[in-house]
């Protein structure tokens, strides 16, 4: 046998064909491409999940077109827009950090991770402000405006719109929190020498994860904030 458990000590086996040619056997250890492939496949599950949520959203947009536009027109585009830019920059910092790590600048890479984390916190803070504002307006999960049969009850389509808004931004925020946790873990692994310019699959995959989180927001933002922006009188079908 010629292999060990840990990535650096693993020596691949050789298989020999009948005419004497030698072929290196791909083991499960030290498989960079396998790590990349595995993580991409995991991200495809997130694509299916958020994809199904967008499907639900579109389904109800179709059934409740005007209510959706009306509800969207109330959204704070400034706050949501700031968040969009914040997340955009954080994707840049994350990518630059990976680049620095690949080229040996471990200190620079760590700085970039810190920068990404700060931006991630900023995103969450702004989201928190938005949700608090909504809460104070009586628009929140479980409150009367989003339940039928009360004087403050919103129209059916708006109830669904806000329900999906809190669900999708909530799940998205949850994924940001997980991302922050992953970045903290990444820093720990870098400090322990387990992530290095020669062995950076973990950093690569976490950067991919962060890009996916950004990708989801790229669609969430216009769907909720922008469809009702501007002058909506032309878009409403009118009764």
């Amino acid at each position, binding site marked *: 046998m010629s292999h060990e458990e840990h990535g650096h000590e693993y020596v691949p086996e050789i298989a020999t064909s009948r005419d004497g040619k030698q072929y290196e056997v791909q083991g499960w250890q030290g498989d960079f491409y396998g790590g*990349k*492939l595995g993580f*991409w*496949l995991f991200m*495809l599950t997130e*694509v*299916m999940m958020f*994809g*199904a949520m967008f*499907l639900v959203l*579109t*389904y109800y*947009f*179709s*059934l*409740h077109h*005007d*209510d959706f536009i*009306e509800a969207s027109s109330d959204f704070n*585009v400034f706050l949501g*827009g700031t968040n*969009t*830019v914040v997340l*955009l920059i954080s*994707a*840049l910092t994350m*990518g630059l950090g990976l*680049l620095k790590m*690949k*080229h*040996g*600048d*471990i*200190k*620079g890479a760590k700085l970039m991770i810190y920068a990404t984390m700060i931006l991630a916190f900023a995103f969450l803070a702004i989201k928190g402000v938005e949700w608090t504002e909504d809460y104070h307006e009586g628009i929140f999960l479980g409150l009367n405006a989003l339940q*039928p049969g009360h004087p403050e*009850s919103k*129209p*059916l*389509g708006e109830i669904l719109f806000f329900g999906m808004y809190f669900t999708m931004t909530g799940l998205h925020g949850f994924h940001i929190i997980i991302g922050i946790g992953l970045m903290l873990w990444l820093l720990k692994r870098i400090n322990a020498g387990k992530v290095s*310019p020669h062995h950076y699959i973990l950093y690569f995959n976490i950067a*991919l994860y962060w*890009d*996916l989180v*950004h*990708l989801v927001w*790229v*669609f969430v*933002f*216009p*769907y909720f904030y*922008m*469809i009702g*922006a*501007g*002058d909506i009188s*032309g*878009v409403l*079908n009118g*009764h």
Partner: protein
Amino acid sequence: MGTNYDEKYYEDRAKYYKVIVGLLLLTTLTFIQPHMFLTNVTFGVQMTIGLTKAILIVLYYMHLKGETLIGWTVMFALSLVTVFFITIMTDVHHFQFKDMSYITEHGADTNMHHATEKE
């Protein structure tokens, strides 16, 4: 810390910066479009802008440009989602009980649950 800032580093970094500029421009478009042009198809335009941003991110930030197998798996998953969309949206567009359903805008029941009600 032996940094190895060779040409490749500056090339790759330049790509990141170029893409971010593209993304920022598209984001600006996102903000101004509902007030400026194609306002009767805002939803379609917004989703198209989003799709363009997504393609840039996936190709360059997520390094999909050089990948074959992974590219095919992504296309497979996206086609599935597209099929689900097309099928279900076709079904709901041919909703046979539109006039009687409680949950549609033209359905039966009192109209107290609709937004744009003229008094």
